[in-house]
């Protein structure tokens, strides 16, 4: 009697437990999908925004006026970057550069520092990008590679990579103006890190040729 009772209780408990387990399963599934969507959204944004930016840049080339890639944007394309490197040769590695370096701008494309020299201008042209999307390709840059920038007037300037180095985020002298005409690309380091925070920056220094 007592034995049977406890057995029923055990079965009932088992059923309730089962339902709870399924609930946990659904919750976990939801959580997992949310995490993936969050990460995927960032990557997708970075990837597909480039197409809209390309369109805006081509418009700019045609009429020489700044065009926003989408109506609510706080930025506009200022240049097109092409890598002439053994590992990054094809045109699919082209990048469209936006004005400004805020976190929101960088989510859509590499940003040009507005306090520095303009694209193709004498001085230090500084462009920063995310290590996990646009500027992941900097990993494959080698000394002597050529980077070509096209500004909004369609003028092309070429830079030859002269130095690759890792600096601390406090070394802001990387962003100082220079007498020669150079391009400084900044991204976070190390490339394989998964985190959003980083103390180190990878600097690609290229001089005008």
């Amino acid at each position, binding site marked *: 009697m007592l034995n049977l009772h406890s057995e029923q209780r055990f079965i009932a408990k088992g059923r309730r437990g089962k339902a709870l*387990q399924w609930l946990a399963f659904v919750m976990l599934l939801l959580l997992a999908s949310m995490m993936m*969507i969050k990460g995927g959204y960032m990557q997708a944004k970075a990837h597909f925004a480039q197409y809209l930016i390309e369109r805006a840049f081509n418009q700019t080339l045609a009429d020489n006026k700044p065009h*926003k890639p989408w109506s609510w944007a706080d930025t506009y394309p200022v240049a097109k970057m092409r890598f002439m490197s053994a590992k990054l040769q094809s045109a699919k590695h082209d990048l469209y550069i936006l004005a400004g370096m805020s976190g929101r701008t960088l989510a859509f494309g590499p940003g040009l520092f507005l306090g520095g020299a303009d694209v193709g201008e004498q001085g230090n042209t500084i462009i920063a990008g*995310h290590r996990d999307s646009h500027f992941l390709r900097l990993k494959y840059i080698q000394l002597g590679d050529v980077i070509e920038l096209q500004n909004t007037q369609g003028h092309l300037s070429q830079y030859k990579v002269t130095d690759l180095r890792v600096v601390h985020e406090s070394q802001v002298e990387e962003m100082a103006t220079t007498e020669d005409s150079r391009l400084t690309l900044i*991204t976070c380091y190390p490339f394989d*890190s998964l985190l959003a925070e*980083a103390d180190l920056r990878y600097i690609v220094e290229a001089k005008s040729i």
Partner: protein
Amino acid sequence: MFAKGPLGLGLMGVWLLVVTNMSESSPHSYADASRVSDEVTQGVVNYHINGQQKQMLALDTQVEMAVSGLINRVTVKQIFNNIEQEWINAKYVFPLPDNAGVDGMELVIGERVFKGVIKPKQQAKQAFERAKQQGKQASLVSQQRSNIFTTQLANIGPQQQIVVEITYLETVSYQDGIFSLRFPLVVAPRYRPDFQRGEFAQAQQIVVPMLNQTQHQLPSHKVSLNIHIDSGFGLTQLSSLYHDIQQHNQGRLTHVVLQGKVPLDRDFVLQWQTDVGDEVAGAIFYQTGQTHLLSVEDNAEVSDDIYAMALLLPPSLEHKSQHHINRELIFVIDTSGSMAGESIKQAKRALDLALTTLKPMDSFNIIDFNSSVQSLFIQAQAANAANLVKARRYVAALDADGGTEMAPALDKALGSTINHVQQQSKLRQVIFLTDGAVSNEAQLFEQIAHQLQHSRLFTVGIGSAPNSHFMKRAASIGRGTFTYIGKSAEVEQQMTQLIDKISQPVLTDVELYHLDGSIPEYWPANIEDVYQRSPIAISFKVPAEQLQPVIISGKINGQYWQTQLDLTTADAATGLDLVWANAKISALELSQDSANRHRVEQQIAALALRYHLVSSATSLLAVDVTPVNAHYGDKGEYQLGQLVPAGWQINTIQQGFLPQTATASRLWLLAGLSLFALTLLFGLWLKRMLPGQLLIIQPPEPDNA
């Protein structure tokens, strides 16, 4: 659950391990340069011998200081002895006070003499490259930052004496009516030269030979300090916080002496107050000719120009009742898309903080702009409780999105002054919080200059890499100041400082001219206002033949005020030409834009070379000037390492941090995927479809039935 638990934990463990390993790997590759400043507490010589890192303390330190108003000209001479029996290469390190710049140095190693000369950067760089090829890389890269003077001392013979003499200029600190200056004397218990990363990374034990000899008594060495103070006014309450001093007064001049064996557990700190009345007080200093003589070929045109400095001090606090000034504070906050994220949070916190400091008689308004301009009130309103609640709610609801249309916002903040001309008594202060990501800079500068009238524009730079050149120049045109907030931890301190400072303006619209109405050359063209917490010094240049009194005028609470200062009553000071040239260089740097960049750079280089200053276009190099009869072969220019005093170079270097260039997208993806896989496993287990489950779990069932 049993199946999932351990497996899940195991996977999580692996995943955590990966992440932590990655984050840990970064600090090793870079030694934090900022730590050096904590460790270097006085001038020492560091060297490396037999795998050990050692440090020499000076046998004798002689310091000469000449204080004129807010400027302190310091000459430090330190003598060291190489107690080793071998030849060594060493490094001299000296912690400079903040805001100091080295302009001269001389090294004597045995019989060799090295002298600091100013060279154009290009030339210095070439010397750099040469040194680099000779394998002296460490000295080239390591000293780019932090306020530490470092120079290489090469080939020091056994028992040889080293004499280092450096001259620098610093600003005396002023707070609540008390001036103070500090000279580093503390010996750090242990010293870790992190900047020599890699090379000496394994040095575990640090030996301090001088300290070991005097182990049983307090470390001490011979120190003599000779300080001449000309504060511009009578001195009251001169005191040294930790050391016994002798003082002699002679009119406006005070001479302070500290001599003999001095305990090395405290820095030397000297404080004084001046006898200022209940009104703004002015004093003047002057100097004839330049501090650094030009090189031989230019000697013909040595001029006797007079470099003068006028000092304006706010009234002392005890004399003055806190007068109530009716202020109108306009906060302008940039809510464009570029501010999204951390920046807008910081800006909102700064704004909240500023609101708490408002007094009931102040009136205020908040303007926010992105693609369009909105404001809290149509006109500025009294800062009463009800309005403040409204304001707080308004700020909380702000969100960053859209474009950056700064011109209409400036127009709203400054333009409405025109309607207020009749109520002159109100002081308008516009506090502008932005990251400065604008493209039409030139147009905005023009607008500010045109619309400013009686307002003052204070720019507050927010975010990791704000366009500080734009904001500095905007503040300079707007006769205000630029404040930079880099991290959220700094919001409170920086904002409170700014608000405190500007809450008590004492003298505004300052102008300086000669008795005959002509205007001497001073920089920048707009003289700052005098606030209760910040006195100002205006340095200017007068041709020798035009020596005549100067008049300084301004407004105190809307009332006209002027004072006449006579140069002939002033005592001679030193280093004023450097202060003047530095102010001119800063002003030139600020005026730089893409059109005139090259020309301005040439002007800066010419000025810096002429006055022997470190600037954006020049650097200080060590040159071997040993007399020819000395029996050492290596003549000519000798690269000892670059001397980069920070402080004076701040104008040319971007503030803050390099931009943040990473997202956690891959982390989210990876975490999501792992969790997804685990969840699937869990689901399979629930369905009892995992291999093995059928065999183990099902057999008991017939028993139960």
